[in-house]
């Protein structure tokens, strides 16, 4: 097919050609183009379709409408084209009517669930769920942390308790050994009514110089009873240690005893065998024992022993 002619007619000319009103010479030129030129041939077909559609939609008027009736519709083939265009127009109208009816029914739901609203609703729900998930995660972590802290504290307490119990047992064992080592006979409860006892009452030690009390021990005496007065009975138990002041060594140690009355003051009373004593000075160290077992020296009571 030949390339497009440089003098292509415009649409009004095509309309005239289709309605048979173009001058003969020009019409002949377009006759040739309609067969030999591809582009013109398609343009002519498109223009003819537009003309027929305009007639069907009642868009033609005046001379164009008259010419369409008298010339265009004179051909059976062209009447077939008009019939097809009418059918297509009705088909589209019916389809549009059905679409409008269905859109009215669904318009309420389409307004409620517009794509935009649905997107926002989903976004909102997703945000809420994300927030809840985040809160639960945080709370879970906090609870786990608290639980691990509680377990650590419990473990520490258990360990401390075990250590304290162990220390207490050790101290008790040490006390028992010491008591056995220093005064095997102290485990016995001497019967003071049958023994020949010597008693010595020593006042609370004072800061100033004071004379040392002397106790004369006869060889036939069995026990010496020391009654050591206290300023106050602060402790529930006391322990007395008999020391040689020259060497600062313990000669004897008592068991834990409870305070008693020593005249008008509280005091501690202990007894020990006279064969422990020599002619020399001694010191009775009094230590208060607290409820926790801790010992604290509350006073040193000095006295002189003469063995005759």
């Amino acid at each position, binding site marked *: 097919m*030949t390339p497009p002619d440089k003098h292509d007619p415009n649409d009004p000319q095509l309309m005239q050609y*289709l309605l048979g009103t173009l001058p003969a010479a020009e019409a002949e030129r377009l*006759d040739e183009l309609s067969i030999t030129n591809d582009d013109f041939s398609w343009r002519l077909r*498109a223009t003819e379709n537009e003309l027929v*559609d305009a007639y069907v939609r009642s*868009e033609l008027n005046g001379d164009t409408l008259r010419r369409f009736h008298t010339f265009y*519709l*004179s051909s059976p083939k062209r009447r077939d084209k008009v019939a097809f265009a009418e059918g297509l127009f009705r088909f589209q109208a019916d389809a549009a009517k059905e679409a409008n009816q269905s859109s009215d029914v669904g318009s309420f739901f389409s307004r409620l669930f517009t794509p935009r609203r649905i997107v926002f609703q989903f976004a909102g729900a997703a945000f809420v769920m994300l927030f809840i998930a985040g809160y639960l995660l945080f709370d879970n972590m906090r609870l786990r942390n608290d639980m691990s802290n509680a377990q650590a504290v419990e473990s520490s307490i258990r360990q401390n308790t075990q250590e304290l119990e162990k220390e207490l047992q050790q101290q008790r064992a040490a006390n028992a050994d010491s008591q056995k080592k220093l005064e095997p006979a102290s485990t016995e409860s001497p019967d003071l009514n049958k023994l020949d006892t010597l008693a010595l009452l020593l006042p609370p030690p004072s800061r100033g110089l004071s004379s040392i009390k002397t106790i004369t021990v006869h060889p036939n005496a069995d026990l010496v009873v020391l009654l050591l007065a206290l300023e106050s009975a602060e402790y529930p138990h006391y322990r007395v240690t008999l020391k040689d002041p020259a060497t600062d060594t313990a000669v004897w140690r008592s068991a834990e005893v409870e305070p008693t009355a020593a005249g008008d003051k509280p005091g501690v009373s202990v007894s020990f065998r006279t064969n422990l004593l020599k002619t020399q000075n001694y010191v009775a160290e009094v230590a208060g024992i607290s409820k926790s077992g801790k010992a604290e020296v509350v006073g040193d009571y000095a006295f002189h022993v003469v063995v005759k």
Partner: protein
Amino acid sequence: MRTAQSERPQELKNWTPTENSFQQFLHWLEEGVDSNGEKYLEMRRRLVAYFDRKNCLSADELADETLARVAQKLQEKGEITDLSPAHYCYVTAKFVFLEYIRGGKRNQVSLEEISAAGLPDLEANPSFPDSDSANQEQMLICLDRCLKKLSSSDSELILEYYQGEQQEKIQRRRQLSEKLGLSANALSIRACRIRGKVETCVKECCGRK
């Protein structure tokens, strides 16, 4: 190819196209590009439209006569190189038309003959004569059937392209061309092709030719 034997020149009346001559004619018409017979159908359509615009009632027969003469000439000469196939067909068609109007049987209908025949006053009653309700219903049924034969894209295109009036129609076509990535001209040609295909299908469905 159909031929109007009674109207042909004497020397051509005894010519019958053969398979070889027809294939030769197709090959020459397609100018070396295999169109699977589309070029032949398009040329025939253009010739029918040409004769129809000339108000020839037997436009189909005249178009076939034109193509037969071209095929015969090609077979006789072996080749035709002085004109392009399309131009040669046009020149032949002109001769066919001139012979037709000079010939004894004049099938051409003039405007005066139309008025004298007492055809309905189409100006007063613009409704198409053949468009009675039964035919219209049949048309709609066939149209629906033929549209369903199209691909979904072609069906959507043709309904969208010819929808609306005036400015709305222009706007729709602009949007359609942007959507499909086609120029206005390309879109118009595609719509024409699809419409032509549907028209042919509807004619066959309605029993018309």
